[in-house]
Every structure is written in structure tokens, then in C-alpha cells.
């Protein structure tokens, strides 16, 4: 079994997204056909290579476009605008927010824009949708192209009217000459020709203070398809003659097949067994029969002895990943000297368990082979990455594999890989028909990958007046994201130590920033209490980052921190953090029932700032959603495992946040129109856990240093924790 471990070097090679909506049954177009099908109009491409940017005025009919293009915009003769991007929509609302940004610079109505996303035959290559990169990178790229398109159209109109281009006005998809009242739509200006312009992205963009379409709370663009059930997710795709596949799973990780009897399954009507070494699967006319057939296969496996939750953190610390010793993320001053000079010295360990993404739509794919070309519809954050994996696996040139990513039932970092796509393709090839594979919930838990567990060791020193002077932070296995402290400390040693993880692990919303921030912000709270200083005041005393200070103060003000009084039944906690250009501060109010030791989060106020807001409604939704998702990891989500098996791969035993767990949530958005927009899908998750832990301490005096903080049973020893939720 390969154990994806993208945490060191991060996310760099494991990040990608896209999408495309091809209705089931309709034959998908490839790029060449699609370009032909675009008809007349203006095609604008953004080239990474400036040399290409000089070329313009070519026609695109019959021309190969430069390879290194990150997106295209096409303006058709009828004024319809089509945007092509490799980013994918997974619920973060970029289908809407990217279209807003194009409308803004192109000066067209929002409704005239269609986004084509994540179809490897139709859109330019893209690494993937992860790392909160869509808004800061794809957004400006599209805006540059839209600006260039508008400029081209104005120039063309000026030439036609023999007018000065500076005097013309572009608005609502038309260029108008105010002097003569002559006016042409964008489509009319292209005059039935196929024009291409390649630009390099150095255009002056409209400042956020002047935005008219961007910056507005435009609703989800195809929202109606979701409330009517019309939207086709990857698992809804159907192809003519399609069969259903199911895969025989081993009894544990790294298991070896020791015996196999497929005779009972083979006798079932319409069922075919596909076997290739230890890959054993069935293909059946429907999914129910496929699952029944898998259930009838008798297989025995030899599963090697493997670690469990018991002793996990010692295991992670004592099993470093092979290779060179990692360099510290930050090493300044002398921590030992600074500690020696400190009045308050604390040293603590914090832990986080493995948790699952549990996207409500599990991995799913439909694969179809036609004339030697493989087309796969699947849910993935990296369509091009999956295409490359498939091309390699089947020894095909990239052009012979097409991956289409219909807007999917989310991922949260959990769908960077293409397991179901590969399985469906393998089975479709074997039976000569399109095959659908939809993972069961148990498969999704077991054979996907997990948010890493980790051990974090902190050491900190404070001088009498409340000045932080020493900070040492070691993270074992969980990851380097969000590991550096935003506080002003003259002596720091901060290091990530990759481990050999006993379970397959990978990306997750916010990566390790939740774990690192939980440890750091819990420690900050501990230091504040030890120094007898209010936790907010203690943070502000040691913080010069004005953006982080601003969200802290905004959250505290909205929450009423200054007058909030913690008592035995009700505690208030605060935490903050910054990562990937997002700034977050969270205040939590927790209700504790002393008799039953039960904990409930009653109220959360979270302030957020990520530069200029592109869509305040979508942003509010993302931040509130991140808070809710964070509740699970903070309080009760944890993967239990032993001897190569997950012990709770079901929603009945792996608890997710529900309506009843949801507190009153207030989101305060700070709109910094003077700053570039950063991504907002991830970092909003990192404030909740420490704020809640700090609130529990404020109420009870108990410091909970392990996430989840209040499960029914501790993962390590099965004992009941002091507080439950």
C-alpha cells in the first residue's frame, strides 16, 4: 500500500482542481472539437511565457495554442462569455466568485458568463484546487485576461469608428462612443472572425474600491439545480450500457491474499469476476448486485501486526521518516538562554488524532473506453493529476485520457487522489463497457487517506511583565502548516519532524494549521493564566502583526470579551491565527454541566480577514462552515484503529458535527479593499479548537491538551475523558 505523505514539502505537489458539466449521455467533446465549436469570437489566453504574450491577432482555427496557458476566456458572437479553468467547484463557491471577477474586468453582466471547469480536454492544465490558491492566483489571472479582452474590443471598435479609444466606454457587454452614440456589442465587434489574443498578465486591474460585480453577495450561480436534484455529481453520471463495479477489499492494511473462492459470486446472473493478482472485483448490471456478489466471495488474508491508537504518539516520535534530518522552520536567538532568563517557564505536550474528511459523497467514478481513449468522470481536486496517473497506469499518452470533474460532493482536501477512477477504468477495460464505481462509506473511511495524527511539544518562557521571550515548537508527523508563531519572540526554535505514519495520511482543510494552532494558542492561554494577564491582553502585548491584531480586536468586541465572565458552568475562550493569507480570531462560549461533565459550545464569534472580499455571502458561508467542521476535530472526531484495521469506519461510530452540536455562530468579516484577496476555504478552521479548549479551562480549570477534547472514550486507552460532549 502506498502511503501518501504530502505533508513535508506539503501540499506543493498535491494540489489541484477543476470541473466540467457534461450531461450524462451526451458525447463529450475534446479540446480540438471544442475550439471549433466555439464559433466566431475573441479568445483570450494567459501565457506564462511572456514571448507568447507578444503574439496576437492570430486566428485560433487550426492553430495549436501555447502549451503553458493557465486559463482561457472566449467571447462569442452572441456575447456569451465562456471561461475555462482547471480549478474545480467542490462547494467553496468559486464557480460564482471567479465569474464575478471576470464580469468585473470584462464589463459584462454576471449572467452572460459560463464557467467550464476541471475537464482535462477542455481546460488548460492546472495543478489542482487546494492550498487556498484559487482566489489569490486564478482570480487575478482571469481578471488580467478579462481586462485584456475588454481592451482589445475597445481598440477594435475604435479602429472601426476611427475614434480615439480613450473616449469609448465599455459597459454591459457593449462598447459605446458617447460622442456619436454609436454602439456595438462585444460579439458584433469581433465581426464573425475567430481572433485570439495571448496576454501575460501585467494589466492594471480595477481596484476593489471600484468593484461593481465583484465584492457583491451574488448567490450560488447554479443553486436551483441543487434544490431540485438536477445537478449531476460524479456518482450520478450514467453512460449507455454502463455496468457497476465493486472491489474486494483486504481485511487490513498491507494484507496478503491467502485464499480465494469466487464460485458463489460467479453463479450470480450477470456477474463477472475480474481478477488481476490481488485485485479482485466484480462487475454487475446494477450496484446492489455488485455489492451482493462481493459479499459472496470467500477470501482470507494475512494481515501483519501493526500499531494502534495505543502508544501512537510515542510511535510517531520514535519512527522518523527516512532521509535527511529536517531543517528547522525557524531558528532565531537562543531558546536555552531566553528560557534561563524567563520568570514563567512552561513545557507541554499536545496531541491530535487521525481524523477523516468524510465528504458526504464518497469517491466515485464512471470510466468509458472508446477507440482506445479513456474518459473518466470522477470527483477529484486534481483532475490533471488523476489524468496523469491513469495515463501512466494504462501506458497511454496524456491526450488519450480525459478526466471530467462534475461539481462534486466536496473533498476538504480528501480527494487529491484518483483511486475510484483507476478502479473504474480497470474494470471498464476488462469488461469492454462503461463501469461505475462508487465507494461505500466504509471504503471511503478505510481506503482513502486521513488527516494526520500528531504530537506537538512546546516550551515557552515569559518575563514578569508578560513579555514572551522564548518559544520552542516541535511537531511530530502532523505537518508544518501554520507552525511558525505570529507572536514577537526573540528566541525561537520551530521544527517539523516527519514520521512514518502507521496509517495512510494526506491533505486536509487547513492541513496541520489546526493542530499547530491548537497547541500554540492553548499554550498562549496557559502562559497568560500563569502570568495573571487577561488572555486577550497577553496576546496583544506580544503581537505587532496589525492584521492579526485587527481580527482579535474585532472578535473580542463582537463577543463582548471585556465583560465576559467565566464561571463553573460557562467558560469563555479566545484564540487567533494566520495562515495562507487569512487572518482569524475566534471567541467561544462553552457550557459545562458540572454534574454530568458534559460540554457544549453555546456561542462562537469569529472574525475573519483575507484582503478584499470577492463575495461576502460565499465568504460568510465558508467561514461559518469551517467553524462547524472544526467542532468535530475539536471535540469528538477520531479514527480508532488496530492491527491494520479502522475500528470505526461508519457514521454510527465516527461522530460528525450535527445540528445539535452547532452553536450560535456570528461571523465578522473585515473587508480590506486595499489588500489582494486571499483564499478563504481553509484557515477559518484553525481558531475554534483552541478557543474552545481555553473556554473549557476558564470554566473548569481543566486543561485539555488532546484533540478531540471530549470524546466518549479516549482513543489511547479507552478511558472516559474528564469531559464529554
Amino acid at each position: 500500500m502506498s502511503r501518501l505523505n504530502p505533508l513535508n514539502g506539503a501540499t506543493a505537489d498535491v494540489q489541484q482542481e477543476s470541473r466540467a458539466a457534461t450531461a450524462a449521455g451526451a458525447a463529450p467533446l475534446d479540446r480540438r472539437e471544442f475550439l471549433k465549436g466555439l464559433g466566431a469570437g475573441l479568445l483570450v489566453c494567459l501565457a506564462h511565457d511572456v514571448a507568447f504574450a507578444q503574439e496576437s491577432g492570430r486566428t485560433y482555427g487550426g492553430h495549436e495554442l501555447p502549451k503553458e496557458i493557465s486559463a482561457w476566456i472566449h467571447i462569442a458572437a452572441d456575447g456569451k462569455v465562456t471561461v475555462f479553468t482547471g480549478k474545480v467547484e467542490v462547494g467553496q463557491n468559486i464557480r460564482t466568485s471567479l465569474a464575478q471577477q471576470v464580469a468585473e474586468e470584462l464589463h459584462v453582466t454576471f449572467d452572460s458568463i459560463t464557467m467550464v471547469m476541471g475537464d482535462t480536454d477542455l481546460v488548460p492544465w492546472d495543478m489542482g484546487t487546494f492550498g487556498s490558491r484559487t482566489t489569490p492566483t486564478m482570480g487575478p489571472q482571469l481578471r488580467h485576461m478579462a481586462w485584456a479582452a475588454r481592451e482589445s474590443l475597445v481598440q477594435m471598435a475604435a479602429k472601426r469608428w476611427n475614434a480615439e479609444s480613450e473616449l469609448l466606454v465599455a459597459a454591459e457587454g457593449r462598447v459605446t462612443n458617447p460622442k456619436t452614440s454609436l454602439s456595438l456589442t462585444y460579439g458584433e465587434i469581433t465581426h464573425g472572425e475567430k481572433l485570439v489574443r495571448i496576454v501575460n498578465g501585467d494589466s492594471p486591474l480595477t481596484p476593489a474600491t471600484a468593484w461593481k460585480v465583484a465584492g457583491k453577495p451574488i448567490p450560488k450561480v447554479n443553486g436551483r439545480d441543487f434544490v431540485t436534484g438536477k445537478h449531476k455529481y460524479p456518482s450520478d453520471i450514467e453512460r449507455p450500457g454502463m455496468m457497476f463495479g465493486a472491489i474486494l477489499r483486504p481485511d487490513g492494511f498491507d494484507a496478503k491474499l491467502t485464499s480465494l473462492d469466487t464460485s458463489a459470486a460467479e453463479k450470480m446472473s450477470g456477474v463477472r469476476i475480474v481478477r488481476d493478482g490481488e485485485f479482485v472485483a466484480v462487475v454487475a448490471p446494477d450496484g446492489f448486485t455488485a455489492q451482493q456478489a462481493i459479499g459472496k466471495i470467500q477470501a482470507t488474508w494475512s494481515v501483519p501486526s501493526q500499531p494502534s491508537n495505543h502508544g501512537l504518539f510515542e510511535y510517531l516520535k520514535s519512527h522518523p521518516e527516512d532521509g535527511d534530518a529536517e531543517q528547522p522552520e525557524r531558528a532565531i536567538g537562543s531558546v536555552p538562554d531566553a528560557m534561563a532568563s524567563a520568570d514563567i517557564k512552561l513545557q507541554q505536550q499536545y496531541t491530535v488524532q487521525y481524523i477523516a474528511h468524510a465528504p458526504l459523497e464518497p469517491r466515485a467514478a464512471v470510466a468509458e473506453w472508446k477507440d482506445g481513449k479513456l474518459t473518466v468522470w470522477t470527483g477529484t481536486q486534481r483532475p490533471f493529476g488523476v489524468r496523469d496517473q491513469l495515463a501512466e497506469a494504462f501506458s497511454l499518452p496524456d491526450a488519450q485520457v480525459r478526466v471530467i470533474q462534475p461539481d462534486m460532493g466536496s473533498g476538504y482536501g480528501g480527494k487529491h487522489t484518483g483511486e475510484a477512477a483507476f478502479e473504474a477504468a480497470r474494470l471498464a477495460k476488462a469488461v469492454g463497457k462503461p463501469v461505475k464505481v462508487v465507494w461505500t462509506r466504509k471504503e471511503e473511511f478505510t481506503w482513502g487517506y486521513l488527516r494526520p495524527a500528531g504530537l506537538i511539544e512546546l516550551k515557552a518562557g515569559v518575563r514578569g511583565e508578560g513579555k514572551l521571550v522564548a518559544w520552542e515548537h516541535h511537531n511530530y508527523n502532523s505537518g508544518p502548516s501554520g507552525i511558525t508563531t505570529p507572536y514577537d519572540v526573540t528566541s525561537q526554535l520551530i521544527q517539523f519532524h516527519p514520521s512514518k505514519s502507521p496509517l495512510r495520511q494526506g491533505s486536509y482543510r487547513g492541513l496541520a494549521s489546526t493542530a499547530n494552532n491548537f497547541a500554540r494558542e492553548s499554550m498562549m492561554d496557559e502562559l497568560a493564566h500563569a502570568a495573571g494577564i487577561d488572555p486577550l491582553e497577553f496576546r496583544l502585548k506580544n503581537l505587532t502583526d496589525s492584521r492579526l491584531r485587527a481580527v482579535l480586536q474585532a472578535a473580542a468586541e463582537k463577543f463582548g470579551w471585556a465583560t465576559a465572565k467565566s464561571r463553573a458552568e460557562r467558560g469563555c475562550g479566545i484564540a487567533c491565527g494566520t495562515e495562507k493569507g487569512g487572518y482569524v480570531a475566534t471567541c467561544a462560549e462553552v457550557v459545562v454541566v458540572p454534574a454530568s461533565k458534559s460540554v457544549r459550545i453555546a456561542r462562537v464569534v469569529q472574525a475573519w480577514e483575507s484582503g478584499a472580499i470577492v463575495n461576502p455571502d460565499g465568504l460568510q458561508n465558508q467561514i461559518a462552515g469551517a467553524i462547524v467542521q472544526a467542532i468535530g476535530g475539536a471535540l469528538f472526531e477520531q479514527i480508532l484503529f488496530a492491527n491494520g484495521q479502522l475500528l470505526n469506519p461508519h457514521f454510527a461510530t465516527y461522530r460528525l458535527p450535527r445540528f445539535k452540536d452547532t452553536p450560535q455562530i456570528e461571523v465578522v468579516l473585515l473587508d480590506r479593499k486595499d489588500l489582494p484577496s486571499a483564499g478563504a476555504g481553509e484557515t477559518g478552521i484553525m481558531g475554534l479548537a483552541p478557543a474552545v479548549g481555553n473556554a473549557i479551562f476558564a470554566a473548569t480549570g481543566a486543561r485539555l491538551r488532546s484533540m478531540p477534547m471530549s470524546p466518549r472514550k479516549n482513543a489511547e486507552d479507552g478511558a472516559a475523558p474528564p469531559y464529554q460532549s
Partner: protein
Amino acid sequence: MSEFTLIVNGERRRVVTGGDEPLLSVLREHLKLTGTKYGCGEGQCGACTVLVDGQAMHSCQVPVSVAAGARITTIEGLEQDGKLTPVQQAFLDEGAMQCGYCTSGMILAATALLRQTPHPNDQQIVEGMNHNICRCGAYPRIVKAVRRAAGMNGRGGGR
């Protein structure tokens, strides 16, 4: 294999299958009504919620033999002549979704809740919807959408 007659969204539909096949896959695969979603197959997440004789049920837990003869409503059966139901409209107006995968089940659960309790307070909404999971965490907006739909029903809730 047996033949079963289902009344789905007001239409009589015949399917031939084993009687223990769940209603969920019958709807999705036999009848091509893919608006009803698979989330867990264990009756825990509510993505597969449909109305069976007006009651919200997890279709992954209902064998087709049990559903035979009953009136089944799926998400595809709510919109009439291009007009959304108040619950659908409220979900749209509140933007009560992110990825939208849970939305069908949420809307049917809310529809059943409001039939039984036309003017629920927040606690009743939370109790009534708690069988449905939104992994994106849109719960606060979903509660608002149910509240809004209750007001739009014209049963005295007002606007």
C-alpha cells in the same frame, strides 16, 4: 427476482429486482432519479431521505418490498410547473448549501417536519433535522431556511 409497483412522484413505476434491494438504489439506478443521494448506506446521514406516505425516511434502509404500494416523493417530485416549493425556495434564498450533496435530503426532511409541525421553534427544527448531516457545516443557514419556509407556507406563520 420479483416485480414491484412503486408510486413515485405521483407516477406508477414497475421495477423487477430482489425484494431486499434498498429503495435508494431502486430510485437511483432503476428509475434514474439521481437526486436522492448515497451518503452512508447505514441510515445515519440522511442524504437519501425521501418521503414515504409523507414520512421522511432514509431510503437506504427501506427495502423495495416495503416501499411497494406506498406514495414516494423524491426531490424531483417537489417542483410543480417550474415552481419551487416553499422549502426549496427558502434553501435557495438563504444559500443554505455549499457542495449541495446533502441538500435533497435536507429539503425532504424539512418538508416532512413542516407538514407535521408547521411552525417549529428552533429547538424543534434542530430535533427534526438532526438525522441529516451537512459535512460542509451549513447548519445555521439550513435552520434559517426552514424558518423562512415555515413563514412562507401561508399557514399562519406570516412573512
